Structures are given as C-alpha cells and as structure tokens.
C-alpha cells in the first residue's frame, strides 16, 4: 500500500517516509534496549533502586565489546588491502540494494 499526498507540485510519498523512520527507530531503540539490558546502571534514584540486583558484573558488557573490538574489528583493521575489501563489502551491499528492485518507491 502506498499513500501519497498530492496537491499540485507537492507530492508526499508518506509510506516511504514512515517506513524509513520506523526502520531506523526500531533499530536504534533495539540497540539502546540491548545496551540497557547489558549495562544496567542507576536508571532511577537510589530510593527507587531498592531491590535491584547488586551482584551484577557491570564489566561483562565492556568485556564483550572489547572482545568484539579485539577479535573481530582488530584483525579486520590489520588486514592487508583493508580499503579494497571494505569497498568490496560496500559494493555487495550496493548490488543487493540495486538488484532487489529497491530503488525508489
């Protein structure tokens, strides 16, 4: 379904706008949700924090991200011809986007 508002020159493909906004919102909110779950932290005042788990290992998430950095991103950055490989990866994204018939609404 495509809803388009059109008055003279003014054309607003509402579906296209809302789709990209929602996709971005869902991805960003999901990321924050995962980070919140992993890191915890004093979200609210100490009064309301009563009953929260205090034995949580707050360093776990940092360790995981450090592992991602050291085990995955580090070797990638150390790789010879990194720039060429990055361009190839981007080109694959480009090809997928182009040949899936996704250009324009």
């Amino acid at each position, binding site marked *: 379904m495509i809803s388009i508002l059109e008055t003279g*020159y*003014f054309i607003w493909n509402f579906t296209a706008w809302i789709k990209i*906004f929602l996709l971005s919102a869902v991805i960003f909110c999901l990321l924050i949700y995962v980070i919140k779950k992993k890191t915890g932290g004093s979200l609210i005042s100490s009064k309301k924090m009563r009953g929260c788990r205090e034995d949580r290992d707050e360093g776990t998430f940092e360790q995981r991200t450090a592992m991602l950095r050291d085990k995955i991103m580090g070797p990638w950055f150390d790789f010879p011809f990194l720039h060429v490989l990055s361009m190839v990866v981007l080109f694959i994204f480009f090809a997928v986007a*182009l040949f899936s018939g996704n250009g324009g609404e």
Partner: protein
Amino acid sequence: MNNLSIRLLGYFSSWVLMLVTLAVALFAEAIHTFLSGKTLNRRGMIVSFIPLRDIFRSITAPINLPENAAVRLSIYLPCLALAGLIPVAASIPFFSFVPVMDNGGDLMQILQFALLSETLAIISVLSLGTSAAEATAKRMTDELIALIVPMMAAFVSIGFYYSASGVQGDPFSLNTFTNAQHMSASVPFSLTGTLIFVFVIFSRIPHSNAGFGCSLLENCELPDFNGAPRSTLQLWSIFRAFLVVALVTHIFFPWGFFKGLNAGFSISWWAQSVNFAAFWSTVLFIRVFGVTVCWKVKELLERFIRIKNGGMWLYIILTVTATLLVVFEGIRISMETAAF
C-alpha cells in the same frame, strides 16, 4: 515470500549504505576537533582531542539518569530523534547511490522531519526533570528557532525566485535548486541574498561554542545524565549539523560545472560517481573550514555591535535583508519576462 525477503534485504542494504555516508559526519567532526584543538593548544588552552572517542566509550557505560527523570522517555526519545534525521538524509540526493525513496527532496517535507527530530530531542532533555535540563532544553529551543527561521526564509525565497522565473516542476525541490540560476552573476541580488543566507545558517549550526565541535552537551553539562542516551544525543547533534551543511551546500554547489564535466563520460555510473565524490568532498570541506570561517566572522561582527542582544538583532537584519534581496530578484525577473 522469497521476493519479499529479497526486497527487505535490499531495503536494509540501502539503509546501511546511507549510514556509511552519514559516517562522513564523524570523520568531519574528528578533523575539525583535531585542527581546532591544535590552534587552541598553540594559544595555551588545553583541549581534549578525543571528544568523539568519549562519545563512543560512553555508549557502553552504565546508563545514569537524574532522580526525577521519566525513565523510558529519557532513554528512548534520543533514538527517535536520531531516527527522525534518517528520512531527512534519505531525501538529500546523492546520500546513497540507491535511493530509498524518490521524493525529489521537497524542502518543506525535509524541514517538517527536521522539526520532528528537534522536538523529540528537546522533549528527551526535558524529560530528565532537572532545572539544569530545563535550561539546556531552553537553549536548544532558542538554537532551533535561530536555525530553522533563516533556513525556511532561504528555501521559501529561493523557491519564490524559481516560481517567478517560470521554472518547470516543484519550486521547493532540491532538484530544482540544482539549476543554480539563483547563484548566477547575472542575478546579483539573488546571489548576494543566497550568500548571506549561507553565512547566517552556517554560523548558527553548532550546539556548543566555536572551536569545540558540534556536540550538544559539554563535558560538565548535565553530569547526572550518562550512558548510551547521552551519546545518542551527542551523535544526533553531530549528524544534524552535517545534514544542515549538506542541505545548504546543495543550494550553492556548482552543479552546472559537473554537468558539463559529465559529458565526457560514456557510462552514466561514472558521471554519478564523480558527482557523488565531488559533492561529499565539498560538504566535508565546508563542514571543516567553511563553517569555522562563518563562526569567526560572526564573532568579529558581534564584537562591533554593542547593543543588548546584538547578535540576535544582527541575524534578524541579515535574514530579512537576504529574503528581500532574493524576493526582489524574483519580482524583477518576472517583470522582465512580462515586459518581454
């Protein structure tokens, strides 16, 4: 089903490609901080070279909110504000080789989404519920008005100019602006007006003081608000500044020159690549150097005006003058056309 998943994969790929272009904003911010830090260090001021690193580090730090905060709003609204910038990015031609939507970059729609994003960011700061947060939200509102009014005046007056000069198609479309007729030497009033608009808009971009980049919050500001939501707001501020630079650069970019250059290429993809590279290099250059020059000129001008709220009056006068100049050129051209 298979077709749908392929389309979804394609849509997601386009989205990722757009984020890659948006990463140029971080690169520009890093260069700008490095250069301005070097200059200020030479003057004896100690400046941190690593604000970007701090932003990314605090993403994984435990989230911390003030006592009175509306927790869910404070955590998730910065994400929605950031998401509000993505449709704006998508509607700028050349943001991605594969356009996610084909709207012709209508400026009124772009400004509507920019306003939505700004409103969400302001509410997210307000939801912290402290007096310091209220002061920050008030500052953000003032900065929003100071930025959006000249931008609207610029787009409406240039749109009027194109409408009066009888251009075919939507006069508010970024695609129409690529004709660059309003920047021609044969229309001096319009040219001057547009340059004044460019100066006014660029000198209102940063959230923080000149020389310290574009991050929304300083290190000492809202210390009880920490973690991923704070980083998201800082990134939102950096991307917002970059998108404004990209939008305004689109108005005065010499598209005509590149159209001529493209004639030599037999494959249109090569021509597109040249346009893409040239446009984003210009945006990067303008973000790093052009915006800084506008800040310096603004400081100089404000020093000369010794009345209360001198800076504000300067912007009002400049915006009104620029609008009148561009509108006058439009009326002049339409009268010439009618006489002819």
